[in-house]
């Protein structure tokens, strides 16, 4: 008799209790205030008087078991056996005694993990899977992030920006990366190249037709084969047709380029959440270090760092000085493509006499 297969134990999200540092557990829901004594370190004080120091360090996010074990050894020897991760893949070590902070920092630094990412820093770049693992990407994610964080390492560790800078990347226009102060996203510039011999074999054609945001796809007989055709005048080259129909190849080594978006903000602080806005495009996709992307991002960060007031996020700074001045200060070109023509776009036009000179 064949053994019955093991059915899953559908336990769902585990309870956090056994994973919490004891001081966090004891003071759950009863914290009083916090401060940042130095870059990369948070100091929280509970209503009970208990204190906890958190040391935040950058990681690769894509981690091999040796790196993870090394971090856990550090957590056991120099911290108190409990860690957590942030939404941007920074690792945090919690210790309940201040004298433990410096040796922990020293050890992490010695092992190559940068300390920072708190307060007004450029934190680790939120990213996805890219060529390492995704079935859709036009570029790599971990590589681009490694290259850019090498350039921005000081901004991670020194925490000298006017306010926090959240950078994200997306390797295609599905945009798995979220909104960011700066978003570095692929922008395809040509319609898909269709392999008509494969479309009927691989694709559910009505699904693909429905997927197009501008209804540019229709079924057609091409070279005697049932396939799909794209109205290239309508096509916005977004690549939405590619995931349900891989024979509609949207990725192109030359024509899939990078665009930079600026001004996204998730927090409600001072101003409501905002979407990021297109500021640069046409940037070549050049592994392994994508220097052209770094150049533009660094230009933007420099202008922001020099000109923004304390606590202003990049988008708030741009709104205060006005977008024309943003383009001036960052020396980025303004083109017809910056003017929105999607649904609801009239609201983005300047319907006033508010002009800065």
């Amino acid at each position, binding site marked *: 008799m064949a053994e019955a297969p093991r059915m899953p134990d559908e336990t769902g999200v585990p309870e956090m209790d056994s994973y919490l540092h004891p001081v*966090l557990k004891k003071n759950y829901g009863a914290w009083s205030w916090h401060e940042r004594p130095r870059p990369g370190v948070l100091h929280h004080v509970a209503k009970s008087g208990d204190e*906890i120091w958190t040391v935040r360090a950058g990681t690769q996010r894509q981690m091999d078991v040796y790196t993870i074990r090394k971090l856990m050894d550090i957590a056991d020897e120099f911290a108190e056996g409990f860690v957590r991760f942030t939404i941007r893949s920074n690792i945090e070590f919690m210790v309940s005694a201040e004298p433990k902070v410096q040796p922990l920092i020293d050890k992490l630094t010695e092992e190559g993990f940068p300390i920072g990412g708190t307060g007004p820093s450029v934190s680790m770049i939120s990213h996805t899977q890219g060529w390492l693992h995704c079935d859709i990407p036009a570029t790599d994610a971990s590589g681009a992030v490694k290259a850019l964080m090498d350039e921005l390492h000081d901004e991670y560790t020194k925490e000298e920006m006017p306010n926090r800078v959240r950078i994200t990347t997306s390797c295609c226009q599905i945009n798995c990366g979220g909104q960011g102060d700066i978003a570095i996203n692929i922008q395809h510039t040509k319609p898909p190249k269709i392999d008509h011999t494969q479309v009927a074999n691989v694709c559910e054609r009505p699904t693909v037709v429905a997927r197009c945001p501008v209804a540019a796809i229709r079924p057609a007989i091409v070279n005697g084969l049932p396939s799909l055709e794209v109205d290239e005048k309508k096509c916005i080259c977004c690549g939405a047709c590619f995931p349900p129909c891989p024979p509609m190849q949207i990725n192109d080594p030359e024509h899939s380029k990078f665009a930079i978006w600026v001004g996204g903000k998730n*927090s409600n602080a001072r101003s409501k959440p905002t979407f990021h806005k297109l500021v640069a495009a046409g940037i070549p996709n050049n592994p392994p270090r994508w220097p052209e992307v770094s150049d533009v991002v660094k230009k933007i960060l420099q202008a922001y760092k020099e000109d923004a007031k304390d606590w202003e996020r990049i988008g708030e700074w741009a709104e205060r000085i006005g977008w024309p001045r943003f383009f001036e200060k960052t020396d980025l070109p303004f083109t017809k493509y910056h003017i929105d023509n999607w649904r609801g776009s009239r609201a983005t036009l300047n319907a006033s006499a508010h002009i800065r000179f």
Partner: protein
Amino acid sequence: MTKPMRDTPMLDQLESGPWPSFVTGLKRLAKDNDMMVDLMGQLETSYETKKGYWKGGTVGVIGYGGGVIPRFSELKGEDGKPLYPAASEFHTLRIMPPPGMHYDTNTMRKFCDIWEKYGSGLIAFHGQSGDIMFQGCNTDNVQPAFDELNEMGFDMGGAGPAVRTGMSCVGAARCEQSCVDEGRTMRMLVNNALDDMHRPALPYKFKYKVSGCPNDCMNAVQRADLATIGTWRDDMKVDQQEVKAFVADKGRKYVIDNVITRCPTQALALNDDDTLEVNNKDCVRCMHCINVMTKALSPGDDKGVTLLCGGKRTLKIGDLMGTVIVPFHKLESDEDFEWLEELATEILDFFAENALEHERTGEMIERIGLTNFLEGVGLDIDPNMISQPRTNPYVRMDDWDGEVAKWNERSVAQ
């Protein structure tokens, strides 16, 4: 004995520089693992040709219809055989972490042992939706790897047209600004919908995110179909002694320039005696002043949540922010949590029945209108749901009197 390492001149360039290098990690794994040798070969090829070589497929575990991300390599030699055979199957298991992504070192080491045994040894902490991503194992190893992780008390995350893994901030575990038990909330929302997570049958994905305050560190408003944001409805708490200490330390100008004038509704004033005057009626709980003066200011005591619905990224109508569907509700007692559980179920059911294929909740609301959605899930309209009333007159209003009567009834009831 492992295969000889491939030449990876482009990837090698990502080993230099101060940021920790994932390439160094890949190479270390490749020393003992053929799968990683071949993975690096494929990745290097991608860097050379600027093309990806993965395709999806159907791989899963018994009892679940989703949660494994199948990856088969399309990179073939001229003979039609996989060029990098040891990495020709490189699937990922999405596993849900504890709320707040807390771990003890033993658990992390067990994860490493399991993944070294069954897979590539490459784990991402975490994916964009909050999963632990155990990346890289062949089809045969998916089930036993999952079984061992499941035995540890962890369960599969969401993928496909399903409820996805949720996220909650560090919140009450460490943050004094927390206004709700974020971990309990997220866990309740997701565990209430496990059937819709593990047996994908929704029109499209559905995400829950919980942030303990309007700083929204989990980016819930933008990224969640149902966003829970902790807040308070009574007066902000002010420790005037600490305010004075802050002013003494930073100076009046700093406080005026960075706190008083930054309030979006001009609800703050700095008195001549260096104390803070707060017009709580105008406070919109933006968190800025509290962020700056962490010792002097904190959220009020009458805490609860604001719920927003409809956040999503670009495809197919463009990015949307979630919008308010519940301005305030308590979330402390078991009854409160039951209320949220029932509402979340209503919303999920309404989405399941009314959204088109591949349509997100926000897109559905855009298509049918907010008032139809609210009616459909049993929520009352509220002026806090709008930034401004309509600016166009193109609507049929012959039931005006009836609607006014409803409003008056509600006002009396409150």
